[in-house]
């Protein structure tokens, strides 16, 4: 009980989390309805709600969100698969690590978005370029965490495997991969988070087609603050949803492999 009380707010204090947002929205609503500012940027909460409703009912929203998500997930899958392969190679083979490791470490330092101009020249502005960029974004954390996990398998496990006369293959399947699994999951989880961020970036910088990022850019270009706010909320919600999904999958996989969650 006492340890629970230390980590979670006591029930009578739960309301405290709602104070700031409620006061904030109230001030916003008051400012808009009383006309504190002449600027067209001060839109009322109702207007945002109306715009949201229009977007959803007209189908524009669904088109944008589905193409954004399709892009996001395909980039994420390609990047994760490639990342797992590269990470395993780096983790299992000392020679490969010596050959590729330093180059990879330098490569990952380059700010991700700096690649966009090059990618746009090589692959155009369409979906191919975006998916290439997204897989690049997803690749890096997967490689780093997979390699780290495999490298940091406790020596005691490896010694047990050696004592039991495990073959190299058995050691990899039975000992190293399960031991590295939590770290690999962390990498995949990060990849999901990064790829959503990169989706939005790609849609800003490679402007073409549908997408939630394009909705935002449209809103900003036409001085439609309501559309911008709506888009921001959606981006936050999708990011949060992906987050929760990844956490849940991670926990389920951990239970499947009998790993106690960290």
């Amino acid at each position, binding site marked *: 009980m006492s340890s629970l009380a230390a980590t979670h*707010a006591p029930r009578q*204090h739960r309301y*405290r*989390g709602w*104070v*700031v*947002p409620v006061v904030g929205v109230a001030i916003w609503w008051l400012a808009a309805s009383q006309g504190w500012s002449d600027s067209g*940027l001060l839109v009322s909460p109702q207007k945002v709600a109306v715009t949201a409703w229009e977007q959803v009912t007209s189908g524009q929203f669904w088109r944008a969100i589905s193409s954004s998500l399709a892009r996001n997930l395909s980039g994420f899958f390609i990047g994760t698969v490639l990342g797992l392969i590269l990470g395993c190679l780096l983790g299992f083979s000392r*020679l490969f690590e*010596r*050959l*590729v490791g*330093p*180059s990879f470490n*330098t490569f990952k*330092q*380059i*700010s*991700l*978005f*700096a*690649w*966009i*101009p*090059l990618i*746009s*020249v*090589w692959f155009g502005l369409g979906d191919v370029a975006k998916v290439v960029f997204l897989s690049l974004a997803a690749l890096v954390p997967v490689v780093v965490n997979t390699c780290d996990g495999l490298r940091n398998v406790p020596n005691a*496990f490896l010694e*047990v*495997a050696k004592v039991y*006369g495990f073959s190299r293959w058995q050691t990899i399947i*039975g*000992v190293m991969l*399960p*031991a590295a699994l939590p770290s690999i999951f962390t990498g995949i989880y990060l990849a999901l988070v990064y790829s*959503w*961020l990169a989706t*939005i*970036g790609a849609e*800003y*910088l490679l402007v073409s087609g549908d997408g939630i*990022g394009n909705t*935002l*850019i449209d809103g*900003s270009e036409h*001085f439609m*603050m309501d559309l*911008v*706010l709506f*888009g*921001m909320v959606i*981006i*936050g*919600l999708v*990011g949060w949803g992906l*987050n929760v999904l990844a956490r849940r999958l991670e926990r389920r996989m951990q239970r499947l*492999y*009998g*790993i106690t969650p960290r």
Partner: protein
Amino acid sequence: MARATATALDQQPSPAKKLAPVERLPNFPARAPRQVAAATRPRSGWQSRALNIALSWLLPIALLGLWYLGTERGWLSEQVLPPPAYVYQTLTDLITTGDLWLNASASLQRVLVGFLIGSGLGVTLGLFMGLSKTVEDYLLPTFNALVQIPVLGWMPFALLLFGIGEPLKYVLIAHAALVPVTLCTLQAFHQVPKRLLEVGQAYGFSQRQIVTDIVLPSAVAPIFTGLRLGFTKAWLSLVVVELLASSEGLGYLIAYGRQLFQLDLVMAAVVVVGTVGLLIDRGFEVIERRLNKGRAITPGRLA
């Protein structure tokens, strides 16, 4: 891992069980001793280090060679992939004309100002939330909700509010740095080793003494980790912001080169962005290692 341990435990004789008499042990043929691949000949330290360095340069050199060959033989047109010599020349041109310095200093100034504002606010916010449970209860849920929107999501909003000028860049970079710094600071306060706090209480420390003598010193290293993370994020968002809206800076060089289809300029600028980022990160890493070294002696062992 768990499976391996489980089988290992199953096959372990339980201590209570009577052991079979020794002579009844089946006489397996002794397993041939595994050929342990010992290092063929002992290499001295500098030899293996030299080998490592040589191996690590193999891939970049091979790629450079391929790049050179590809442009030389005309497999790719110069518009798509300019020859390496071209990029090098652009880079030296940028340096000699002073353009590089002009743009790099603009970028560095932005990132520094933004980072200082963001990390200052972040440390303060984290400090307040870490020290007072009440403040945390009020602010943290809102903070967590706002964090779900990445910096890029704020961009069009900030663009409308602040226009395209310098404040936009400062605000976005500060926001990028603020998030990890705040979270790491808060976590640093939550992770103060319990034993140290108990020792403090046993010695009858006042609340204030506990904060200044126990909590703050043990939080320094994690907060620094947050600062490093925050700077990485700030540098990343600097490039994005400059790509989208600026008239000077390294990101602008990249965007400009792309508009004119001067890929040599783009590549040269990417190289500079990468190098500066790498150097700054290395600097942070050195300081971080030094901080952690001091930490390993005192609270690390107790934790």
